[in-house]
């Protein structure tokens, strides 16, 4: 996957649709990222922290029981084992280091369920930066434990009362806050979305996930790449990192969206949060709220590079329903001893479905990025079990 063009576009998607007061900051960010991402000292520090603090490289695990049942060889790239429990750490360490190099002392971030907020608070604590996390008031209520986690890590959590009080509004509020504090503050955006250069920067910081997976699975398969490489897509950062490792192989790449937040599958092209991409919107152009079982995929847009990869057909995008996801969540837990994040369970749900229908042919090698662990979701799933929503 290449650099975007000089206007920050992947094909026709991306760009910088932001108010003028943010333009200088975005241009500075691009210049600094370009400079430091080719600086061996910066890269050395980034890799060192991800290894000795972040727990990288994460392993690739063969799922023996599920592979037997499904008749395919199923492998997981284990981002659930990275520090803070998801791939988010890769991006925040990179951005926090970049912020320090740029002389910024504060980080601001948006968060939905709290994963990116916790990761940002963690990176800030490690590197001596001040973190402020914007979180929709509805999500603050739903994810009390993650709010406490962020506070424990020294971050300030600001409940967002505007709009629908969820992730999309947290992004708006973080942008508004950034306009005011742009001099000494870096906006640590959590996914491959937003205005250029964020989709590119975040993908580059997630590239480590894909590069590791590429060499690990190549060795495991005795010098071959898998037939399928699968990842879940909300904003799309774990998928972008994963696909960057396999885009030049023969592997079929599959991104799986939540059926209630499937911008690529059901959306139309529009402009929100500084980018041109597929988004969920009504007929007059108001942005719709996404809604699924996993807060991390409840985003009405998607990173512009995914829109590009959809249009040039290098990646196919599929969906999974809440009930398919819950079933996959339970199967992985009980048959393999791994409780997945509900986000990642979307990828697994599609693999189970496609293996059973024969769409993935028997004997295929399939790699799924398990973007995070499911501890955060256990309480919510228990509630659904108690209510009888699932068995």
């Amino acid at each position: 996957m290449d650099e975007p063009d000089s206007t920050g576009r992947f094909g026709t998607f991306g760009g910088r649709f932001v108010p003028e007061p943010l333009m200088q900051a975005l241009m500075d960010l691009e210049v600094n990222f370009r400079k430091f991402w080719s600086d061996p000292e910066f890269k050395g520090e980034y890799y060192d922290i991800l290894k000795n603090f972040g727990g990288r490289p994460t392993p690739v695990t063969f799922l023996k029981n599920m592979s037997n049942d499904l008749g395919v060889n199923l492998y997981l790239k284990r981002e659930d084992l990275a520090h803070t429990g998801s791939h988010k750490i890769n991006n925040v360490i990179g951005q926090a280091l970049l912020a320090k190099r740029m002389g910024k002392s504060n980080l601001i971030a948006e968060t939905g369920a709290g994963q990116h907020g916790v990761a940002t608070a963690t990176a800030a604590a490690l590197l001596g930066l001040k973190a402020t996390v914007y979180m929709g008031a509805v999500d603050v209520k739903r994810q009390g434990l993650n709010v406490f986690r962020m506070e424990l890590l020294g971050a300030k959590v600001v409940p967002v009362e505007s709009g629908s009080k969820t992730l999309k509004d947290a992004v708006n509020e973080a942008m508004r806050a950034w306009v005011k504090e742009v001099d000494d503050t870096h906006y640590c955006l959590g996914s491959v979305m937003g205005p250029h250069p964020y989709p590119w920067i975040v993908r580059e910081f997630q590239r480590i996930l894909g590069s590791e997976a590429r060499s690990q699975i190549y060795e495991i398969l005795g010098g071959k790449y898998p037939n399928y490489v699968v990842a879940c897509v909300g904003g799309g950062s774990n998928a972008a990192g994963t696909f960057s490792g396999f885009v030049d192989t023969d592997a079929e790449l599959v991104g799986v969206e939540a059926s209630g937040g499937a911008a690529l599958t059901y959306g139309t092209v529009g402009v929100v949060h500084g980018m041109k991409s597929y988004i969920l919107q009504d007929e007059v152009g108001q942005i719709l709220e996404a809604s699924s079982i996993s807060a991390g995929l409840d985003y009405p847009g998607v990173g512009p590079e995914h829109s590009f990869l959809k249009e040039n057909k290098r990646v196919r995008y599929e969906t999974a329903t809440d009930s398919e996801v819950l079933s996959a969540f339970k199967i992985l837990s009980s048959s393999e001893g791994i409780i997945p994040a509900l986000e990642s369970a979307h990828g697994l749900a599609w693999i189970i479905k496609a293996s059973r229908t024969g769409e993935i042919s028997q004997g295929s090698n399939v790699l799924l990025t398990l973007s995070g662990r499911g501890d955060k979701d256990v309480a919510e799933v228990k509630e659904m079990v108690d209510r009888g929503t699932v068995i």
Partner: protein
Amino acid sequence: MLENLTKKDLKPLVVPYITGQMRDDWLDIIYQMANAKADAIEVGLPFSDPMIDGPTIQESSKKAIENGATTDSILDGLASLDIDCPIYIMTYYNLIVRVGIDRFVERVVSSKVKGLIVPDLPLEEIDELNTATRSAGVSQVLLVAPSTPDLRMASIAKRSAGFLYTMGLMGVTGERSSLPQSALETARRAKKVAPGDLPVLVGIGVSLPEQAREITKYCDGVVVGSAIVRRILNGSKIDEIGEFIQSFKS
């Protein structure tokens, strides 16, 4: 040829803002604004995700959307007006993209709207819309901010039509109790680089007549948004709104 706003006398230019359809009598308020000698009126199309707007204009946008406001309904309303005062539409870019650039500009022209202000369209992204607005004779007003360097400010001013919208501070729309130093400084810089016939108006954070008097020592006029919108939200009567606008002219 695109027309710029021109001063009729020595008084500063005053451009009040209202979010379209935020109150049932919004068209009457626009008439009153014109009667109160507004030099132009900025009408906002409400958007669900207004990135550069503070709580007051967010609230008015929410109200308008709840009242059933759409791009079409607001433009239809404006088309029905019979006033001399030029109307400028403020909209986030997605509402234009949704309709389609050419169709949107056609609709704007048929509604007798003079110009467009699109706050999430910086210089680097204006070309596609600008091609359409120029050939249709619609003025595209561009924005500069305190963070905009001089050279860039000059490039933006050169492409701006109608007037140059100068953001007085680094922040979102909303009332401020006093005029920030950045407003004076930015107004002065903008005036220096703007072509002579392009008026420089300062918006964001200009909420009171005395603030307007102070800032217009350095520029040609002001845009008053949140201070008016708050009054409309609070149920101010139409003539009170008119008086408030007139107080900027005295």
